[in-house]
């Protein structure tokens, strides 16, 4: 590991740094400084992920026993099995729906934040960021309190004499909960992409006779597309891989890729299959990323 660092280090002198320290000592110092993080990263990130990739080509012999030979069995049994195909398609569709809802819910907040100033803006930002830093378990629990049979919404419906609805332990609950969980990410991504939105441009459109509605659709939306693309990428990727919320709000009745990975890894102990499903998640990530960069090139 340290050899790799040494090889990637140039003497500070060549980059226009201070003289007085030789090339060898600079390389040695940089290696020393980067050594610990390279070690942690290599041992607990690169190595495990590479191992996971290899494992997806090995056979499970029941329990946590793994065969020695390499095989495509896991890949063929997931990619040609109607259950897994359905699982993958459902995961993607559900994630897309959640992404769309998250965008609709986040856009007004982001636009409002973009147009507010000073302490008020800081306060609103704290409101956006605080949920991000609050454990997903806590927020999911809050949704259980709202959506449960004896929760806020159903008790309100009952008070109005409306029949209670099943909002939890099904896909409805998962979609509502995840939408809220992902909103802070979407809002921050939108804000980052709102830089091009200059109020002067909107005013120019108004002086040219555009109604507020027209200004919104013809000026604001196109100018904020980079932020929208980034936010959607982030939300989609997080939705596909989210686990806590689908598990708790789905009550074991909603099956998505992430929950299946956990079950295969912890309950069934079929690690090669779990590894294969993980790789499929990564492939979906890669596809989303490619789509995103295409989209970005198209809108800018």
């Amino acid at each position, binding site marked *: 590991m340290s050899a790799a660092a040494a090889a990637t*280090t140039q003497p500070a002198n060549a980059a226009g740094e201070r003289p007085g320290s030789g090339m060898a000592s600079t390389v040695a110092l940089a290696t020393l400084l980067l050594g610990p993080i390279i070690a942690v990263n290599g041992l607990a*990130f690169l190595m495990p992920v590479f*191992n996971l990739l290899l494992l997806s080509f090995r056979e499970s012999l029941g329990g946590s026993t793994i065969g020695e030979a390499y095989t495509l069995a896991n890949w063929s049994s997931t990619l040609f099995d109607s259950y897994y195909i359905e699982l993958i398609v459902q995961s993607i569709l559900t994630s897309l729906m959640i992404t769309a809802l998250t965008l609709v819910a986040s856009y007004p907040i982001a636009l409002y934040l973009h147009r507010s100033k000073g302490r008020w803006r800081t306060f609103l930002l704290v*409101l956006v960021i605080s949920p991000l830093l609050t454990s997903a378990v806590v927020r999911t629990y809050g949704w259980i309190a709202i959506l449960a049979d004896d929760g806020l919404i159903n008790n309100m419906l009952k008070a109005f004499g409306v029949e209670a609805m099943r909002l939890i332990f099904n896909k409805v609950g998962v979609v509502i909960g995840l939408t809220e969980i992902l*909103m802070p990410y979407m809002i*921050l991504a939108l804000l980052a992409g709102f830089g091009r939105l200059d109020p002067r441009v909107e005013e120019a459109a108004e002086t040219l006779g555009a109604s*507020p509605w027209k200004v919104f659709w013809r000026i604001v939306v196109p100018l904020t597309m980079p932020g929208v693309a980034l936010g959607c990428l982030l939300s989609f990727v997080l939705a596909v891989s989210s686990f806590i919320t689908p598990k*708790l709000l789905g009550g074991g009745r909603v099956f998505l890729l992430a929950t299946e990975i956990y079950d295969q890894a912890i309950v069934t102990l079929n690690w090669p299959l779990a590894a294969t499903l993980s790789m499929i998640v990564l492939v979906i990530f890669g596809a989303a990323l490619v789509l995103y960069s295409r989209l970005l090139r198209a809108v800018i």
Partner: protein
Amino acid sequence: MEDRPVSPALKIAAFVMFAFLLAPVLLVVPISFSADSYMSFPPSGWSLRWYIELMDNSRMIGALGTSTLLAVIVMVLAMVIALPAAYAIVRMRVIGGEALLALFTAPLLLPTIVLGLAILIVFAGAGLLATFPGLVIAHLIIVLPYALRVLTTSLSGLPIIMEEAASTLGASPLTVFRRITLPMMMPGMVATAALSFLVSFDEAVISLFLTGPRITTLPVALYQHVENQADPLVAAVSVLLIVLTLAVVLIVDRTAGLTKTFVK
């Protein structure tokens, strides 16, 4: 620049969505003071019984202790590991520094469920499953990207001329770092420490793969409790977590500026 007036329609839409965003977090506060023995909202009466029950719940209290100790150790280690790395990347202009930074922040891009599984399999072979050192290493992997990002941003924001001035005044590189660079990085370091603590303290998914009956963290204990019964005990724990989060957010805002840390 003049403000553009915010239209009432936007105000209303933003307000409704803010309510949606904050509802679950806000709702746990009244529930934690419920007198009911199961969760319902609104509660039929108010009491402190769930806080008292929490004090008597040895599993939750034990997990709280584990999580706190874990978060403190991870915070310290993240600082010790990330600070030299940030210095090497920013100040020594290591070749491929950008690539290294991308590599070190890559764990953030990987879904935690995949990362958790990958670490589980390797740790199982190394005997690190359900051990404290195992949890420390796994948490470091997800905390280090945050720490490195905040520290490199903080360091590259510092004008180098103060350090040059110190060296022309006779300070050796180590003295320059200790007397000039480090004190000027203070806000960034506070933000790093706070964020590291919080990320470790709140981490649930990877911990879920690595904990067991012998050792468990608070988010995992909480998750497992909700899986079985969603009673107001969880709300009491949640309120404690929210208060802690808020305290950390305030610290970061006061020292480093919240906006600067999270919004580019």
